[in-house]
């Protein structure tokens, strides 16, 4: 068993007993995709909802919800997953600061979650579990052998989805 770390604006695929991990999601969102039959897991850590208006977005497709998830699906397909079998679990999109008087700052997490849901709907991937919003950071573990998403945070214990 090995642990594969997925950084910010990154994605990766795992099989067998491997575990994907992404640390300290704040307002970013972690998207776990799983092919139950093939036991193939994918994890994407997006930072922003949309690549629109970013001139250098082509160099960083893994950064945006509207470009990263498609890439993850392709990568999983190359590893043998079937796109029609994929199911999603998502976590993150917290509001780390109250940011009173600045809604566009307060809502960055919420906007990310919305964009991820829209993109998953477009790709017809059902969301079967979700741990999003609230006001704390989350470390996410996603296990390829059973598709369990485990969330660890500073003071709120561990939860499996």
């Amino acid at each position, binding site marked *: 068993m090995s642990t594969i770390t997925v950084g910010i604006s990154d994605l990766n695929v795992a099989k067998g007993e491997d575990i994907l991990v992404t*640390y*300290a*999601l*704040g*307002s970013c969102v972690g998207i776990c995709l799983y092919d139950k039959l093939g036991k193939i897991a994918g994890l994407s850590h997006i*930072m922003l909802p949309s690549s629109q208006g970013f001139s250098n977005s082509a160099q960083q497709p893994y950064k945006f919800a509207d470009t990263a998830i498609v890439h993850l699906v392709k990568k999983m397909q190359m590893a043998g997953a079937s796109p029609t079998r994929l199911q999603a679990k998502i976590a993150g999109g917290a509001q780390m600061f109250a*940011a009173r008087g600045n809604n566009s700052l307060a809502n*960055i997490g919420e906007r990310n979650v919305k964009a991820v849901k829209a993109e998953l709907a477009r790709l017809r991937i059902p969301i079967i579990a979700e741990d999003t919003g609230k006001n704390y*950071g989350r470390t996410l573990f996603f296990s390829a052998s059973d598709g369990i998403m485990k969330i660890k945070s500073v003071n709120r214990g561990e939860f499996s989805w």
Partner: protein
Amino acid sequence: MKNYDDLDAMQLDALREIGNIGSGNAATALSVMLQEPVDIAVPTIRILEYDDVIESLGGPEQLLVGLMLQLQGDVTGMIMFLLKQDFAHLVLQQLMGVEFPENGELDEMAGSAIQEVGNIMAGSFVNAIGEMTGLTIDISVPDLCVDMAGAILSAPAIYYANISDKIICIEDELGNGNVRAGTHVLMIPEVDSLNKIMSSLGLV
């Protein structure tokens, strides 16, 4: 200038000077607040990627106290303080005689004390910019978040993604006798505001 990468050597030196003066002001203000002499080591000022800031703070899961203040007036943007636990501990012990809780859960009194430190420190840095440039800058009430470094930093990283993947980072080490405590100050002026600062200094 379109983003932080366009800063030239002279402009970086000007930012270093702002960081030096701000850190000095902050040490003075903190010694008044804590009623103890506070000295400060020469700060390190660098333009860093968020990932490097996170690494220099001890990794993404490192528990930190984050204080965020929004800048308004002639300069808009954000100033953020990331206090390591030893620093928060020093402040709480001096002001209230209590320890920084291991789980980071601050009660209201301790939270207010830390916010006040944020106010004082932000004022010190903002005044440094004001003294050098003549620009007027207002700061918001500090917003407090005790959590993992990566999670705290996701807020400015996302909100200012259109400006830069990098951030102006001032690493300070404050001390009180034998106790040394580290803090990071992150300055994120909007690019227009950074241009304004540089032109006020004759560096455009």
